[in-house]
């Protein structure tokens, strides 16, 4: 069986060094680039399965790399960024990055994100109903079942739930959720979103005060819980 190929883009040799060992040990092949241009070239030549991209590159902005790549491919991209670069992170996600890991990080966290992003998209897989933890979502019938019992959600709550369940384990930004559920005119109305997420949690979470199905990424967005297995 072929091992997935991961492209690591970072200008720090030491980071490339430990990530290389880590990915090899975790069962991936890896190749690395130290500049934005090199990253774009390698992404075209080697067709990697996933890219780990540091946003601070010497030759070009990491966001520009994402923009350029998104015009050609939907290669999953995990962004590495410093904790204080929240704006950068959000912009990268809105430009089409799939997820982010804040530096410094333990490799366990990175590998978990990697697995989520490498899992084939469920929608594409076909007819199976969406799931989010114990919830079964029948998008066509607008029904949500929890242990066989139907939950009553408003249309907006339902759409929110679907948006999060479609990308299990991945962060979805405020803008992405607002744009999808309320439309492009409302992408800045984060307080709306907070209210609706709160209502949704009241209905679906076992303990709404300690949500387990919809997780908050402070300042960035929300993350539906990753599917088991």
């Amino acid at each position, binding site marked *: 069986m072929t091992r997935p190929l991961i492209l690591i883009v970072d200008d720090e040799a030491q980071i490339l060094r430990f990530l290389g060992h*880590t990915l090899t040990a975790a069962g991936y092949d890896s190749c690395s680039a130290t500049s934005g241009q090199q990253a774009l070239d390698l992404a075209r030549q080697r067709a990697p399965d996933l890219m780990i991209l540091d946003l601070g590159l010497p030759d070009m902005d990491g966001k520009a790399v994402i923009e350029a790549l998104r015009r050609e491919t939907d290669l999953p991209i995990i962004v590495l960024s410093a904790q204080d670069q929240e704006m950068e992170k959000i912009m990268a996600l809105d430009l089409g990055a799939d997820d982010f890991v804040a*530096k*410094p990080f333990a490799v366990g966290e990175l590998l978990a994100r990697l697995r989520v992003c490498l899992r084939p998209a469920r929608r594409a897989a076909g007819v199976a109903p969406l799931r989010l933890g114990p919830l079964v979502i029948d998008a066509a019938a607008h029904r949500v079942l929890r242990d066989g019992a139907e939950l009553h959600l408003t249309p907006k709550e339902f759409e929110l739930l679907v948006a999060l369940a479609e990308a299990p384990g991945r962060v979805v930004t405020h803008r992405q959720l607002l744009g999808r559920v309320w439309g492009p005119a409302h992408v800045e109305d984060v307080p709306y979103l907070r209210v609706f997420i709160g209502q949704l949690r009241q209905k679906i979470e076992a303990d709404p005060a300690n949500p387990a199905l919809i997780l908050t990424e402070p300042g960035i967005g929300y993350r539906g819980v990753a599917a088991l297995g």
Partner: protein
Amino acid sequence: MNRAQTIAQPTKAQPTIAQPTTALPSIGLPPETPGWPPAPRLGGALATLALIGGTALLAHLLLRVLPGGAVAVPDASLPLFFLSAVLVAAVAFGFWAGMIAAFSGFATLNYLFTPPLYTFHIAAPQDLFTLLVFLLVAGLAGLLAGRLHDRAEAARARAEALAVLGALSAELANAPDAAAAQDVALRHLAELCKGPAFALRLDEGRPQLARVFGLTQELDAADLAGADRCLRLGRAEPPTAAGWPGSRFGFLPVLAGEAPLALGHGALTGPEGPRRALAIAALAEQLRLALQRLEFADHARAERLRAEAEATRSAVLTSISHDLRTPLATILGAASALRELDGALDPAARTDLLRAIEQEAGRMNGHVTNLLHLTRLELSAQARRDWVDLADIAGAAVARARRSFPGGDLRLEPAPEVPMIRAEGGLLEQAVFNLIDNALHHGRGPVTLRVSAGPGQVMLEVADQGEGPPEPILNWLEGPALRPAPGQRGLGLAVAKAIARHLGGSLTWQGGAFRLGLPQAAIGDPTEAPTKAPTGAGP
């Protein structure tokens, strides 16, 4: 001074200040001239009599001595001669001179030329009419001439005041600070009032002289009381008339800046007084505007500096956080990989990860050390100074650099005997180490250290074969900023520069090398005996 007063004053004083502004257009209008025109001077009266005499002589020559000659002048034109003289006298010397000319001219005409000759007897009543015409012409011409004269005088005074105010506003606009603006205003004020000019402000509740122009006498209690009223009430205080008790000087308030100012000036005398007072009020207003402008400019400058400092601080913070976070990311990542993927890692990878942790921990230690040095140098102005030999320091730094960067090509040229200097050895070693670190990582080829003595200083050069630092870093190196320039990675150079400055020396880039120059004659305590002669090479 009392804060509440300062705040209360501007509102109270507003109408007083506004008043001169509204009165400005009337500056230089001639004052009303009530009563009689001024009496003629003696010179004017004598000249008038001489003129009449001359006219009589001319008339005598033309009519009596040369009758029927080349120019035949009829007797009937005689009065016209004298009328012309009257006109000339009135225009030239004023109303009263004209009157004198009219009377004396008529008398002469009557005595010399009108029959009966050589008597003042008026034979024909119509001759009286001649006198009447003379008087009328003389009066009208004299009054007109007097008014013209007054107008001209007023225009001259106005031009003078405007010239002063014009020069004032030009100079005020160029005044670099409040003191200069006040000096400019005082100089022109002295010119306007033809006397001393000075500025006072309240200091601990009492008016104190702030700036002075041409003030020779001491201010007495009455003067100070006038200034005090002006400052406290924010209104103009005119000088007391001569001979009465009170202030000898006038005071005008200038409400600008942190404390109000009173402009004192000598009393205004002469007919131009009211006009000059208006000009002086305009001057005070201009000074107020200038001071206000300077104050705003100061605020703007301070604000700009603050914003620049803020930008630098944020750039430095970014740089420091990058420096610290990068090794930390490797340490955390490698350590977690060792723990979580323990079984899956092959031995070589495990060893490499451990080595990465060790190296990055060392790198981080270097950053933290530099950060602490920089913080300490920024906080304290005091350097501990011992007698040290720069060559020894260079040797120690090279040894440390060889341990830290085993692969680096590092050469220390044999040092000549150099004078010892007063410095803190640990700091100096860190500066040299940072320069080596910088050369090894950003320069090229072998890095060479050279110690030498120059006039008044000892120098250490760290040379490499690279192109040298980029433009922004060179500019930063010459500038006063200790914190690194935006975009400058690492604190090494910044710390080296800070240490050089701290020890009274300099860090420059010259001829492909960073040169650390340290003063030979230390600023240190002269009572402390050196262990080695600080000047001149030893035997």
